[in-house]
């Protein structure tokens, strides 16, 4: 068995497109990532039916994930139209999921070392506000579940609740670059590294949060 695992790891180790490793999610209703990889037969139905061209096909360069559907939140977040869940032929996307508020693609995480609102708040607390940052609120304004999934603590700090669907619209609209201040941690990824949060977690360990 260990040889098989080694082969698996080897075949999975070619993932070179680091940019896409952050903020990539499965379409709504996706089952646990391990089961998803077994069930998804790459029929492209969800890609075809997506009216916003949000769901994209993973390329062969991503090895074993070739052909599976992904949502790249930095390009465009899921608009939660729930067309894709009903068409999946093998149940890799839960066919019974029709209400968009029940979607749990992932959960948004605010990076308070980059977030403009956090920076401004910290500067004002310290009394050194010099006009380099301004109030942003983009994530709050763009969220389809305003006040439910995201609210502004102290009228300024964006805070995520457990009602977040992980659609990634906030990530799409976040103005910081190159790294977004609000990121999606996808649900059910095989491990935290494959979700692309290696660097993010390292920073937390160092006490950067």
């Amino acid at each position, binding site marked *: 068995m260990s040889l098989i695992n080694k082969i698996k790891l080897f075949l999975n180790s070619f993932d070179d497109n680091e940019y896409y490793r952050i903020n990539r999610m499965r379409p709504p209703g996706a089952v646990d990532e391990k089961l998803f990889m077994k069930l998804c037969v790459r029929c492209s*139905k969800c890609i075809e039916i997506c009216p916003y061209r949000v769901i994209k096909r993973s390329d*062969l360069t991503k090895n074993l994930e070739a052909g599976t559907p992904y949502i790249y939140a930095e390009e465009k977040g899921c608009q939660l139209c729930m067309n894709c869940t009903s*068409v999946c032929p093998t*149940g890799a996307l839960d066919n019974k999921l029709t209400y968009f508020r029940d979607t749990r693609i992932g959960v948004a995480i605010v990076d308070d070392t980059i977030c403009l609102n956090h920076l401004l708040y910290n500067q004002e607390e310290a009394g050194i506000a010099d006009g380099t940052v301004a109030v942003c609120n983009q994530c709050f304004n763009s969220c389809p579940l305003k006040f439910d999934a995201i609210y502004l603590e102290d009228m300024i700090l964006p805070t995520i609740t457990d009602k977040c669907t992980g659609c990634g619209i906030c990530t799409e609209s976040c103005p910081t670059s190159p790294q977004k201040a609000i990121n999606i941690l996808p649900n059910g990824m095989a491990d935290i590294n494959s979700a692309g949060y290696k660097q993010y977690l390292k920073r937390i360990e160092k006490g950067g949060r």
Partner: protein
Amino acid sequence: MQKIRKISQLFFLLLIVAIPILNLMEIYFINGSFISLTVGNLAISDPLAVFQAIFLSHKIVPLMLVSILAPIFIVILFGRVWCSYACPYFLMTEFIDKVKIKLKIKSVRNKNINTNKQNIIRYGLLLIGFIVISILGVPLLYLISPPSVISTQVIMIIKHFAITLEVLIILLILIIEIFFIYRFACRYLCPTGTLLSLFQFKNFGLKVEHIGNCSECKACIKVCPLMLDPKIDGDSKQCNNCGICVDSCKDNLKQKTLFFKMK
């Protein structure tokens, strides 16, 4: 007969282009690729894809079983007509053959054909494929099934103006087909066709039948795209009921010699 087949092939070719365009126009009545297709409320899936998913996940969703009923039913009744009447790749190889004849390039056709050997090789390849995917744990056999790759790539082109690297596999198969092994994909490689022929039973369904008085002109053997001998292999698992041999038979003009019969 051949005209109907050509029209049917072109219809399915049109379909793989039309479905993504209809979906772009927000008409969702028909949706999907040749791996899985939804027409209204009717779901039709490639049995290969569904069997892979069941084999790997040990999980059966009712929709899976319902969606493979129609294709299996058709195969049991009419043989592998999917390959001859619908598969875009079969159409492509026939087109290549025509171009070859126009350019006067001779096809590489091995004279000594043995149907049993062909069957052993293709079932062996399918078995190896299933062993490989059980090691990887991912249903990847669609990669070597040309119709699946073609239809999903057409979706990608129309929806995202992009192609993914699976196209290279099709090109590789085509190169092998043109220069080395005649009808390589259909005869040996294609897992979709191989799996479908598991449901072709020897004494049930539409078969090519032969009754005496053959003038031994061997036109049917020369013309068979899968290099079978229609007189012997009419009920073979290789035969996909394309009917080219029946149309080529000159004895049919005088008397019914080579014909389709429902067993």
